[in-house]
């Protein structure tokens, strides 16, 4: 064996844990900084009403980020999630409203397609970047076919659900907490979740231990599809009408959210709670913060880029030694 036993120069158990703690806390720290910034610039935004308004569109983004997280866990990438959300939105605003049974079957079918893609990628050993790239065209095309122009209407039950105003805690925050907790327990604390994450860490070992890698890919892509559907439905519940291009920015936002939340592209290292926090950070920084800072609208997009870079640079400073 040519690996060196004691190459872990100097960092004892305590040192490693401290760095790890800082890394895990990084997403929360970023969010806190942004919140402090907002509070400073516009104190009235820190209120029930303010949060509701600012984080309105955060829920669909968070759900799409979770979908992306599943895919990234097994060392793949989904470049089609944004267009998929748009497609689901169009289905929701038309069929789900007019002919619910057809709408539901279409949505179920699309989840099945997502799962099937996972199987295809595994069996043919395809690069997920290219497959999902092609699928992004497919979903976008389907969306345009269903709704060539923005329109349609969200089903009433969906609208009222998304418009729910719980006491004390704004709905978006409540939803975010619920999503984070459920995902955390599902992926990080369950016994099968360990297998799923293990597949991303060392697929060969998982295979040798007798688990089916094919099944894990199907499950993860299927879950991505499920959360893509929920995301699209939630989005329409908020905007109340559909638009084929509504989800276009979600692909990149979802990737950014997972990485901001401490996830890594390879190795099966992801954090559901981090991903939720990351998506909230991006949602807040994307518009509200910049508006309050009087950043010219030209720089809305650019600011997202800068935030990503700053957070990732901070992570690099607290990060594990690059080998």
């Amino acid at each position, binding site marked *: *064996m*040519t*690996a*060196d*036993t*004691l*190459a*872990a*120069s100097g960092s004892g158990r305590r040192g*490693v844990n401290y760095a*790890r703690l800082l890394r895990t806390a990084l997403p929360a720290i970023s969010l806190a900084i942004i919140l402090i910034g907002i509070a400073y610039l516009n104190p009235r935004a820190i209120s029930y009403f303010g949060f509701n308004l600012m984080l309105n569109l955060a829920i669909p983004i968070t759900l799409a980020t979770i979908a992306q997280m599943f895919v990234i866990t097994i060392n793949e990438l989904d470049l089609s999630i944004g267009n998929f959300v748009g497609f689901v939105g169009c289905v929701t605003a038309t069929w789900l409203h007019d002919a619910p049974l057809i709408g539901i079957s279409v949505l179920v079918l699309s989840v099945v397609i997502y799962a099937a893609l996972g199987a295809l990628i595994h069996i043919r050993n395809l690069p997920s970047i290219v497959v999902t790239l092609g699928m992004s065209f497919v979903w976008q095309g389907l969306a345009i076919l269903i709704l060539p122009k923005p329109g349609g209407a969200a089903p009433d039950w969906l609208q009222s659900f998304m418009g729910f105003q719980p006491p004390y805690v704004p709905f978006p925050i409540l939803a975010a907490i619920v999503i984070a907790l459920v995902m955390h327990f599902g992926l990080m*604390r369950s*016994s*099968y979740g*360990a*297998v799923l*994450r*293990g597949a*991303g*860490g*060392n697929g*060969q*070992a*998982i295979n*040798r*231990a*007798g*688990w089916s890698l094919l099944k894990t890919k199907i499950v993860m892509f299927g879950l991505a599809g499920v959360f893509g559907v929920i995301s699209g439905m939630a989005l329409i519940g908020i905007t109340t009408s559909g638009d084929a291009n509504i989800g276009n920015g979600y692909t990149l936002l979802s990737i950014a959210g997972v990485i901001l939340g401490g996830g890594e592209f390879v*190795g*099966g*290292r992801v954090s559901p709670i981090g991903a939720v926090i990351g998506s909230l950070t991006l949602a807040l920084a994307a518009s509200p913060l910049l508006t309050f800072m009087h950043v010219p609208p030209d720089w809305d997009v650019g600011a997202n880029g800068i935030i990503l870079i700053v957070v990732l640079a901070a992570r690099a400073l607290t990060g594990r030694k690059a080998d």
Partner: protein
Amino acid sequence: MPVAAKNIIELDGVERHFGAVRALDGVNFAVRRGECIGLVGHNGAGKSTLMHILAGTGIADRGSVTVNGELQATYSVQRAQRLGIRCVFQELSLCPNLSVAENTRISHVSLRGIGWAKRAASLITKRLDEIFPGHGIEAGDIIGDLPIGKRQMVEVARAFTLTDDPLQLVILDEPTSSLDAHAAGQLLSFVRRSVAEGMSCILISHLLGEILDTSDRIVVMRDGKVVADGASSQFDRERLIETMGGAEARDATAAIAETPVSENAPVMVSARPAVQQGGTELLAREGEIVGLAGLAGHGQTRLLIDVFRASTRRQAGVSVAAPVALVAGDRQTDGVFPLWSIADNIGIRSLKGLRRGLFIAAEREKELAHSWQKRIGIRTPDMDNNILSLSGGNQQKALFARALGSDARIVLMDDPMRGVDVATKLEVYDLIRAEARAGRTFLWYTTETEELSNCDRVYVFRNGRIVAALDRSELTEERVIQSSFEEAAP
């Protein structure tokens, strides 16, 4: 009934080929209940391949596998697990992103439902306490954060955990190579205890002392065949080395009376390990072959990499006087470009010199490849074939050709003879000595103490430091092994 219960597993006439290579050339092998078998042989003798067949991770091309008296038509890892046969390989099969407890869960399907984490944790901790008392590992530690010694401990302990499946046979492939002497001793005494309780074990190790002390029976392999099989009391170190095929090597090198390199020859490499206290450093003069020894993973590769780095930038404590090339030992991760031809793999270090103007000259590339094919004896019909078409030994020769065919005057070798057959080794030793006589300097890290007889001087490593510097005259296997454990000596 008595016959069926006697042998846990039997291999009959098993053969395994990798292209032109006969990794296993007709092997009969049986494991009885309650015995510890020591399996020895040089790198490339077929030990690992045999273990893969036993554990179900490799399928024999010919021959049969019988477990508990039942012939196995479709043998696999899952089947082996269920029948109670487990293996701890040299490549760790742990998931670095998961914790110790989670990795335990991976091996056991039944660890699920509420409270699985606690059960998994207590299962692995119990075993760790039993095998390696005082280990200091927590069930919640992430594998990626643990040093390799602790990872090895987890891997071993995991193999011994019990849930639903029985545990009849555990195969340990060089288990002590990443453990320090203390942990190694703990493991071996645990093996003896378990064997006394009726479990069986196969132990593969380069440390012949371990094998002689721990096993009931010893099997020696050479070039894909079993060449000796008997009670361990029948063997001693000399007989083992002889049977393994070391004798010729010994004779061959002993016959050459090497004139030692002059004290006035220029120093090509001076290197001090980062954690070295005191002034001890490694020195290599022009034309010398300097060996690095000691237990695997004790800083030898680290020093070689430091020397390699020093050729392109400033490196504290290290200085080199000429271009440096490295011959990798772990071909897959450090050496081979799997999509390229043999010729391309050889030429990659020398590209700048093969240019005519802006472009690489095709004829000069071809010439380089062909001259080295002849010189080092690469067996292939066409140097433009993909490199993976070569046997392991020939692939290693190609890596040697890459380094030796370049302008490097200093050649570092990172345990390059792993998985290489004896015949190839002898050819390459000759070449190395010839190159050294012509003025090249070699730093040679090897895990086969045999090979150190080629060296002018050997530095023994322990815990990242040089603990001994042995000249050719003082060089015996005993002294090297003794120095390897120097800290633990009473």
